[in-house]
């Protein structure tokens, strides 16, 4: 670790992993509720468990992004963070606010939570992914502002690199676009229109900038390829991301009461959205092929390459699968969407956070570059267990979605929703089994932090040597 203040990243990473475990447990609960409807009812109803599953995902990824930024920025800026104390204070504010919100979801009926937290003063609750009480949203804004102040000032006072500036643009965009969660018009079409400015422009816009910059940083550090080469790739990737992603928002506007032209704009631009992900795949492999050194942290390199591949498959291929308006007319809101959502979030954002944790955590725990061989072997096992499980989760959900679309919407004799759900339950069972495998992978991942911690650090193998 080159700068003392990078240490503030550690609690963020630990919290991220803890919340990740919670997210997966709730995912398994709702997976079971798909097939055993009254599982854990009335203690944990489906709608509450789903809300906790998705909200925990967002919160732990935000913890991960913040931790990544706090680790990356001092090294890129070649100076200490402006205020490590503020970073730690905001960590506790965010963690406590997040924990209280989840407890509120679980212990208080949602309408009661809205009443308790004064939602009527500025109503923002009740919308998918943005269910947080208004007061929590205000807290997120405070944390985001303090975070941007800390990171932004460090970047502006220090060395400015393409990596840190792209990261800053991504983080600033993340904060600014979140403000649309406070806009909650009565008109449902308008509500949905701006709701996507948070949801879509996060995951298919500014978050991709964060992903690109973190991936570039890790590849610079692990491959030793010239910064200039990597930065050129990054420029082109983020340009393509923004060109396709911003107007690509239109693929959410097909059926919400917006003008018909969105079916053309949305189809054309979102059909181009796989391009930046494809470029990211070629970029990552190209950098590793041209590497000047073998980094001892093989697990981090594996996560980096895995991110590029899985993001392309999940966000690119599975997004394209149902993005054209004539296809989406039939598939909208089916399990195909769920399949895409699972693999895209895992590939693009879960894996990039785990890439950064894998790269930074050994240094944060006092190693010079990498964990021991034993620890890395376990971590790489967790990579394959989680990734293969996610591929199966996606395939099973896709199968369910195709059958659902056909039986419920395409056939000449369409069946009712619940009848179809019964018919596709085999896919839901198989998804649940794959989910359990994913949990095992996650347990192995957590275990990798404790195994081999007293063994010596792994060293880079020189290519062509015997051992």
């Amino acid at each position, binding site marked *: 670790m080159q700068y003392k203040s990078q240490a503030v990243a550690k609690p963020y990473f630990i919290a991220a992993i803890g919340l990740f475990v919670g997210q997966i447990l709730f995912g398994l609960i709702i997976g079971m509720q798909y097939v055993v409807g009254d599982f854990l009812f009335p203690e944990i109803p489906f709608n509450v468990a789903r809300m906790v599953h998705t909200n925990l995902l967002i919160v732990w990824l935000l913890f991960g992004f913040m931790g990544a930024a706090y680790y990356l920025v001092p090294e890129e800026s070649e100076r200490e963070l402006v205020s490590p104390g503020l970073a730690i204070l905001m960590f506790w504010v965010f963690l406590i606010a997040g924990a209280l919100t989840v407890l509120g979801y679980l212990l208080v009926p949602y309408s009661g939570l809205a009443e308790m937290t004064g939602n009527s003063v500025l109503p923002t609750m009740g919308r998918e992914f943005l269910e947080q009480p208004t007061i929590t949203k205000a807290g997120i804004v405070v944390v985001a502002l303090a975070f941007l102040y800390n990171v932004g000032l460090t970047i502006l006072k220090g060395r400015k690199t393409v990596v840190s500036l792209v990261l800053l643009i991504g983080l600033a965009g993340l904060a600014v676009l979140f403000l649309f969660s406070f806009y909650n018009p009565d008109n449902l079409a308008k509500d949905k229109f701006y709701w996507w400015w948070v949801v879509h422009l996060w995951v298919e816009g500014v978050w991709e900038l964060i992903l690109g910059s973190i991936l570039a940083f890790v590849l610079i550090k692990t491959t030793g390829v010239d910064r200039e080469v990597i930065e050129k790739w990054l420029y082109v990737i983020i340009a393509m991301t923004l060109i396709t992603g911003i107007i690509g928002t239109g693929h959410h506007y097909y059926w919400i009461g917006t003008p018909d032209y969105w079916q053309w704009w949305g189809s054309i631009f979102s059909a181009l959205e796989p391009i930046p992900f*494809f470029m990211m*795949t*070629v*970029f990552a*492999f*190209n950098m590793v*092929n*041209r590497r000047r050194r073998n980094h001892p942290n093989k697990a981090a390199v594996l996560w980096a390459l895995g991110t590029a*591949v899985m993001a*392309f*498959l999940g966000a690119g*291929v*599975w997004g394209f*699968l149902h993005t054209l308006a004539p296809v989406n007319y039939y598939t909208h809101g089916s399990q195909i969407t769920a399949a895409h959502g699972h693999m895209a979030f895992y590939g693009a954002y879960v894996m990039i956070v785990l890439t950064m944790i894998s790269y930074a955590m050994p240094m944060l725990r006092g190693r010079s570059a990498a964990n021991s061989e034993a620890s890395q072997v376990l971590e790489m096992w967790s990579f394959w267990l989680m990734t293969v499980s996610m591929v199966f989760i996606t*395939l099973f959900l*896709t*199968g369910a979605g*195709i*059958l659902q679309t*056909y*039986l419920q919407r395409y*056939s000449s004799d369409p069946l009712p929703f619940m009848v179809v759900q019964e018919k596709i339950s085999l896919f839901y069972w198989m998804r649940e089994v794959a989910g359990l495998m994913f949990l095992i992978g996650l347990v192995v991942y957590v275990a990798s932090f404790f195994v081999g911690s007293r063994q010596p650090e792994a060293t880079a193998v020189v290519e062509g040597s015997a051992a």
Partner: protein
Amino acid sequence: MSSSAKASDGSGTAIAAESLYLVNLLLAPGLGFLILLAVWWRQHRRAPPLAAAHLAQTLSGSVWAGVLLVVVNAFIVLLGGYHGAHVWVIVILYFTFCHSMLVLFGAYGLSKAMAGQCWRYPLIGRPLPAGCPK
């Protein structure tokens, strides 16, 4: 790398071959293959090992892609019937999975070509010629 250096080591042709393989899969099916076939026809006898390897991989990969994506799918539909719900589950899952894997082979092949290295496509690739940089 200068253009004359690219011509002598064959990396320009190697990159073009991988790009045409991807064009055939992603943008212009058939047309990409025909251009790739023309490039292979003109260059495969006198190409340096790097270019020869990538030309052979991509040509073989494209032929296999045609078999796996068109012929096999046609068989599934012919055997299962156009109106079977389960047929479409198999066709779409199979096509998406298979097509994605073929594209990933191409992406990796392209990155190898850009790095001036040879690479044999798993399962569907031809053996690499002697003297090929790995």
